[in-house]
């Protein structure tokens, strides 16, 4: 279920009340306080995780390149 803050982000800006805008600012400031305190923020629901970077960081290895199958050659009709 979407949280209150997610719902606020999804709303049209014209529908946001002053209280809603305040809530967004408070949420952003909380994120900043957590970051300043060294607490790593959880990725937002719709934000992608940088898997390639994470694999690289954890393993210390470059990720293996994706191997693509060669395109099939079509036979020319005579």
């Amino acid at each position, binding site marked *: 279920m979407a949280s209150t803050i997610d719902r606020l982000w999804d709303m049209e*800006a*014209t529908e946001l009340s*002053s209280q809603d*805008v305040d809530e*967004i600012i408070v949420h952003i400031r909380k994120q900043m306080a957590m970051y300043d305190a060294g607490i790593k*923020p959880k990725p937002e629901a719709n*934000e*992608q995780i940088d898997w390639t970077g994470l694999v690289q960081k954890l393993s210390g290895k470059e990720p293996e390149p994706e191997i693509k199958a060669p395109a099939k050659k079509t036979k020319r009709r005579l």
Partner: protein
Amino acid sequence: MALTDLVTEEAPSPFLPNSNIQYAWDSTSLEDFKRCPRLYQYRMIDGWVSEEESVHLRFGRELHQSLHDYELSISAGIPHDDAVFDVVKELLLRTDDWRPDHKYKNRKNLVRTVVWYLDKFKNDPAQTMVKDDGKPIVEYSFRFELDWGPTAGQPYVLCGHLDRVVNFHDELFVMDHKTTTTEPSDYYWNQFNPHNQMSLYTLASKIVFESNIKGVIINAAEVKIGFSRFTRGTTYRTKDQLEEWLHDLKYWLNLAEGYAEAGYWPMNDTACDKYGGCPFREICSKSPSVRDKFLNSSFVKREPWNPLQPR
């Protein structure tokens, strides 16, 4: 060099009538031309822009607008928290139709970057300079003529927008906002000297404000998935360096005239991988006969960038 009046309702064309000879140059068009004449052609002459580029442009534009709005509110005596509220509200309204799914440059990260920046620099040691009319010098459009030009009656014009002019430890600087998605390293900072935009901005501010501006403070906002970070770096220019930049400019603009007269802008194939990779690399890698098809499918055509467009 002479200052010209800044305020115009509708921006005139930066090109001489019925030609591709550009007489009004800003750092963006000049940088494109210096990097690669073909890149300049695609952007400035033809007006092609990629989806990816438009996300970066919009993100940067909205950030600039927000910081500008904040400065105006503070100079009008509005307290910090109220100014932040107004800025965020306006930003949300302006970007209501803009919901890109970009990993970093998206709406949420934009609003977060603005709030974090304004809170971090609530008591900014770099003080915004104020004009005689009491308004802060932010998003300041400049324009001045050079003493030579493409025709006898039309001198070259250099123009642009200074993000902010500040007093930092009793010295004057231009401040320029940049956004990046990677952590600014020595490599990042070293790119600003020599640097076309920073040399032009230092020169312009010296002429426009008739003051001893030392250089540019680069205000880098690093935008990540869960956080935004800010770092500042300074780049200085001596009088000799600025004279050299202006002297070199003569040669660059002569070259631009030549290409415009020939109607051909050659490709600089040593620059394709620079600056994070040229957005047109995919196009230039195709056979010339099919490039138009690829341009039409991957890029959109819009009104070409106009350096004379006021903000």
